[in-house]
């Protein structure tokens, strides 16, 4: 199987993700895949969920916090500015409080809480998580390419979804029970209707959003998840470990892409001892990859002669990945 074939044979897979250790080429592959799809007439959004995103660097254009920016026809890129989003969100909450109670100032205690909550470490991830939901529910594009954060974060991101889900389930349950007690009292007092519970509605809204996002991550029909690995011992070990963990969260794994393969043809040339050693080492690791991942490897991408930035190099990379 080749990468191009995967895309042709599984046209329903519209959410594309690349995962792997940091610095192995996830952003590069995201950009190159987006480029290839866009060239084939698909409208593509590649977006980053990494607080230290590098899409701006690879496209050589500042897109941070600017929404979806058109890079070339059909190709859009977006970097989420979590800080900005948190600020807007806080403002929205303040506005709601002022509005609901006709106040002209948020009570000090409440204001302190709003500020303290924003300083929580989980806030940034949650804000990005929420922003991603906004992006994917919009359905404005044919393909969504997630430039994922390094493995640890991605796992955190996934586990957060299931923790959130359980948490919301629990408190929704509590809230529903509370509603029942209100109703009992209302029946006893022969009131016609109870007030609708605004909080319960809010909880259901939150639950729906969380399920939407984690639902996509684990959707076997619409999601393709590729692991990026390089022929080095640590990377292989880490990737195997991560693949196991991802499987636990039932993320559908589409295959592996091996990056940074030093071309073996170099061995026939006059090369320094240093490089020859690396080639021998690589040969061993490639054999390991072949043995353990075997048919799940979709592509071997050679180490490029220079950094991959700018559309010219992205095109070259897309050629290496997809051919033609």
């Amino acid at each position, binding site marked *: 199987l080749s990468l191009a074939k995967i895309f042709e044979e599984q046209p329903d897979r519209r959410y594309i993700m690349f995962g792997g250790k940091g610095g192995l080429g996830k952003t590069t592959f995201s950009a190159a895949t987006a480029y290839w799809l866009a060239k084939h007439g698909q409208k593509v959004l590649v977006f980053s969920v990494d607080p230290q995103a590098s899409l701006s660097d690879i496209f050589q254009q500042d897109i941070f916090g600017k929404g979806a920016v058109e890079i070339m026809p059909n190709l859009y890129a977006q970097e989420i500015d979590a800080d900005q989003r948190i600020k807007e*969100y*806080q403002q929205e*909450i303040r506005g*709601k*409080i002022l509005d*609901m*109670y006709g106040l002209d100032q948020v*009570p000090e*205690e*409440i204001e302190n*809480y*709003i500020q*303290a*909550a*924003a300083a*929580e470490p*989980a*806030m940034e991830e*949650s*804000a990005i*998580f*929420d922003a991603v939901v906004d992006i994917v529910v919009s359905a404005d594009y044919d393909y969504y390419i997630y430039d994922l954060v390094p493995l640890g974060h991605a796992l955190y991101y996934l586990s*957060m979804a299931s*923790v*959130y889900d359980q*948490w*919301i389930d*629990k*408190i929704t349950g*509590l*809230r529903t*029970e*509370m509603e029942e*007690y*209100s109703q*009992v*009292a209302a029946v*006893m*007092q*022969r009131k016609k209707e109870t007030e609708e519970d*605004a*909080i319960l509605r*809010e*909880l259901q*809204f*939150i639950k729906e959003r969380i399920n939407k996002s984690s639902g996509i991550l684990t959707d076997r029909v619409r999601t393709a998840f590729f692991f990026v690995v390089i022929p080095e011992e640590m990377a292989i070990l880490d990737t195997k470990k991560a693949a196991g963990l991802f499987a636990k969260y039932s993320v559908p794994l589409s295959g592996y892409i091996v990056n940074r393969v030093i071309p073996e043809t170099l061995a026939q040339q006059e090369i320094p001892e240093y490089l020859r050693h690396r080639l021998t080492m690589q040969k061993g690791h490639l054999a390991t990859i072949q043995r353990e991942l075997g048919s799940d490897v979709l592509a071997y991408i050679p180490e490029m002669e220079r950094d991959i930035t700018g559309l010219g190099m992205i095109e070259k990379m897309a050629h290496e990945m997809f051919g033609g």
Partner: protein
Amino acid sequence: MADEEKSKRGSLLDGAKSVLYGMAGHDMSRYALKTRGSMEHLFILITMGDLLGIPILPPYYSLRILPYVVPQISTWKRRMLRERDLTDALA
């Protein structure tokens, strides 16, 4: 004439219902409301725990709920932080 009788009977029935409610239902509905009140405080604790310095996941979404519980915050804090003593038994 018939109408008057009907409404008379109706008000009599209403009166009887009220007496019955006073005898049996009132306590039950008071109990239901009291339970609900306790649960309300529990609910705020698990969503707004940070206000007492108890961080309970996750702050992003608890902010969404904050506007609805603003009026309860002060009574809730008092209740949660109140020391238990003898007078509690009298309350």
